[in-house]
């Protein structure tokens, strides 16, 4: 597995070699940081390296022309309120996101002051704040550290549990509908999905805020390592969820659904108590 230090070293080498930041001088770069699964301790040699650049003004496509000539496989995407540039060099895949300082400040204010309607958080807004938590500065370290220290992560940790709580009763009704329709395979799938969402909310409450479900086992591992006296044994819950399910046998599915719902109820009550 590639270490954070190796990854950072390679990233800095590539950025220097291609004078990457020089292309965007007109944007007035405030700070830049590397983040993503490797920097969070989850990724591997095949993972992308994510770079976030905070600017006064978003880059225009013509600023990217020189870089594109040297790296013909690079691409520029205008996402309206942010820009993405992707490229692959020396076997490494980079995704570079440009965000304005104003947007980042708004994201941080929304979290710190709890002013935003919980359902209206966008994925990108959430993702950017999560990435700052595990980011490593590449440009103007002081500004980056000041930005990170300015985020109230206790508030941030509550976003997923609060959002999850708004949808739970509807998801539970879906399970019930499938169950009483004797569609046990669907009810099992739905109850497993509900259980995973609940585990995800529980983890977020404990600071494991990575938004991607693909890292759920990594998050559990880290959470368990850092919380030896844990309130709930998540691996035991998942072990029950995965144990000997025969999808051709209704009795087996019914038992599994009941186990899932029982685990869901315990975790959900815990989340409601703590959030």
């Amino acid at each position, binding site marked *: 597995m590639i270490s954070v230090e190796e990854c950072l070293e390679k990233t800095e080498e590539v950025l220097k070699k291609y004078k990457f930041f020089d292309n965007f001088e007109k944007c007035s770069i405030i700070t830049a940081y590397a983040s993503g699964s490797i920097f969070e301790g989850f990724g591997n040699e095949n993972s992308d390296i994510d770079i976030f650049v905070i600017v006064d003004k978003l880059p225009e496509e013509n600023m990217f022309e020189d870089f594109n000539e040297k790296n013909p496989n690079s691409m520029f995407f205008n996402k309206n309120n942010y820009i993405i540039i992707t490229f692959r060099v020396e076997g490494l895949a980079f995704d570079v996101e440009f965000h304005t300082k104003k947007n980042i400040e708004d994201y941080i204010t929304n979290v710190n002051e709890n002013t935003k309607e919980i359902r209206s958080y966008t994925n990108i807004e959430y993702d950017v704040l999560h990435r700052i938590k595990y980011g490593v500065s590449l440009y103007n370290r002081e500004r980056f550290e000041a930005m990170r220290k300015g985020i109230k992560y206790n508030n941030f940790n509550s976003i997923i549990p609060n959002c999850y709580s708004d949808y*739970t*009763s509807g998801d*539970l*009704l879906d399970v019930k509908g499938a169950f009483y329709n004797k569609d046990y395979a669907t009810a099992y799938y739905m109850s497993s999905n509900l259980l995973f969402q609940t585990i995800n909310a529980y983890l977020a409450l404990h600071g494991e805020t990575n938004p991607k479900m693909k890292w759920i086992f990594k998050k559990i591992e880290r959470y368990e390592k850092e919380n030896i006296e844990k309130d709930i044994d998540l691996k035991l819950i998942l072990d029950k969820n995965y144990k000997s399910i025969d999808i051709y046998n209704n009795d087996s599915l019914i038992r599994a*659904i009941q186990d899932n719902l029982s685990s869901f*109820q*315990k975790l959900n009550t815990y989340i*409601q108590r703590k959030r």
Partner: protein
Amino acid sequence: MKLNPFFSIKKQDNEYFGLLDYEAYELNDTSLFILESLQEGKQIEEIKLELLNMYDVKEKKLDKDFQKIVNSLKNENIIVSSD
């Protein structure tokens, strides 16, 4: 007795509600304690005893109030028989 598997608890503005189907039930501290205890697999008599130790109350009075809450939770189908 056990919890209805399709029942869930939600906190809203520091109040606790029980959600079942499209209905929401306001939960006081005692009913919340009973529901959480059932979730942990405790039996009704065990829960009653714990409540008796928790509150300065006569057994007869607690018995009456406890039964009233349990009956109400049963009527709402929030708690159901174990089989």
